[in-house]
């Protein structure tokens, strides 16, 4: 009996390694957690007037789908922003005017590993109400806002095949149930 133990462990480890090797070969593409590394406006920044656009910079390319940004006005009104995703950046055009006070940009993106990553950037507008747009950040001032093209980002691998896998597995499981149900009582012991 003492000789069987190591054999059992070794065989188990072999199975483990084989399974890992199988997965490592077909490993999914890099999927990591996005982290916000910078923003324009910066958190806590002060402006004479509302900047023309807001840019959030992450440490790695951002998925376009499910990205959203919202601007909260000093009064508490919420303005959903149209977002454009370009590489590591998430860009939104801000409304052309707004009264002085504290603004908050809330954002949520879907990290590459499938987790939502959310946060907020606060900034203050000190100038007079109705200030002309684009004085501090004149890059993009199209008020229509660039519509999000979700298709602009390469979609992740088509995952439809996993449903097929699930159906096949379900059929196999049903087969197992059938085998047990047909035979009534489970076989007792090994008669081998």
């Amino acid at each position: 009996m003492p000789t069987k133990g190591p054999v059992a462990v070794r065989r188990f480890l072999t199975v483990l390694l084989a399974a890992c090797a199988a997965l490592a070969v077909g490993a999914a593409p890099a999927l990591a957690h996005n982290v916000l590394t910078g923003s324009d406006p910066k958190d806590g920044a002060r402006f004479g007037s509302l900047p023309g656009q807001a840019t959030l910079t992450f440490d790695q390319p951002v998925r376009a789908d499910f990205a959203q940004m919202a601007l909260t006005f000093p009064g508490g009104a919420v303005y959903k922003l149209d977002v454009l995703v370009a590489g590591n950046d998430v860009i939104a055009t801000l409304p052309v005017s707004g009264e002085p006070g504290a603004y908050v940009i809330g954002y949520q993106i879907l990290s590459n590993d499938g987790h939502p990553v959310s946060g907020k950037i606060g900034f203050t507008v000190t100038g007079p109400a109705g200030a002309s747009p684009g004085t501090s950040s004149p890059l993009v001032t199209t008020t229509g806002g660039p519509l999000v093209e979700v298709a602009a980002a390469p979609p992740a691998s088509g995952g439809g095949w996993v449903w097929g896998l699930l159906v096949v597995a379900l059929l196999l499981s049903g087969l197992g149930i059938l085998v047990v149900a047909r035979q009534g009582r489970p076989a007792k012991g090994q008669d081998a």
Partner: protein
Amino acid sequence: MSATGPAPSPVSTATETAVPADPAPPAEVAVRWPPVWAMGGAALLTLLVATWWTLPGAVPGITAPGPLIEYGLPVARLILDLCALATVGLSLLPRFLGFDDPGRTEATLSRARSWAVLTAFGWTLAALAAMVLSAAEVTPGEAPDPAAYVARIGNGQGLVISAACALVYTCFGLLAVRFGEKVPAELRVAVAIFGLLPLPVSGHASNWYWHDLSMVSMELHVAAASAWTGGLVALGVLLARDRELLARALPRFSRLATVALVVVAVSGLFNGLVELALSPTTRLPGSLFTTHYGWLVVAKTVFAGVIAVLGANIRWRLLPGVARRQATAFAAWALLEITVMGLAYGVAVALTRAAVA
């Protein structure tokens, strides 16, 4: 913890000395449930505390997913993990017990095979629930769209693949229920472990730079942790009252546990530190204690250390007595170790979701 952690005292073991003769096989398997409650209770406790602690604050203008998803998703993930480790552990039991004495082991193994089918079905349901909740999490305020989520997000695909593997397991498991150990235990172990492998994709998975290495390390971590924990839970539930079978199984389990301990500790530390080291906004030595993620890594390391000490206690202090079929406090010590393992599992699930920075 209070509900689960009784002081280690020799319960359920008579104090008489060795019974060398093999008694007649017990007609009924003496099952001990405390390890199951200890594992689940401890894991749920740390998971809820850690989830509450790491919950991202409300963001103005962005709809929050709501407590049902914020807590329901981690709980579904935990149920998935616990069902999976139970499936792996129950599948390993024949390997621990050996095949040379089916007359003596068959009652226990038959029970293990039936349970493994049930835990695999639980695994399937938990994986699908986690998938739907993940889909709901990314579209707060709207109806979840699982099809789009799975089509686009690796996390969703990983959960569906895992559910499919669990269903394939139920097929082999049911065949084993019907035909006994003629269905090889290795096959069932392999299918169960294969079903665990897609799951790290739904964690932080890996970082951008050391992708391949940390991926393999993560896979080893998950597989070794489930074999180790599941194996101990299976022993604690099904064998703790059966000195003869425990004497056969524990030495083999101990060898596996030693390997698993090293694999789990090394791979876990590697992954946790790499994740922190490559986080662009924090620096490593400090971020262990300034970020939620770092604290959870520290907590898990501490738990792993405690588990190692408890495991060493079983291995070197109790094992000789167990091997001589003597009365030992194995049940109590195993219960304690399983409780700490549960604490670690709860933290582990929270860790897969906590923001790194």
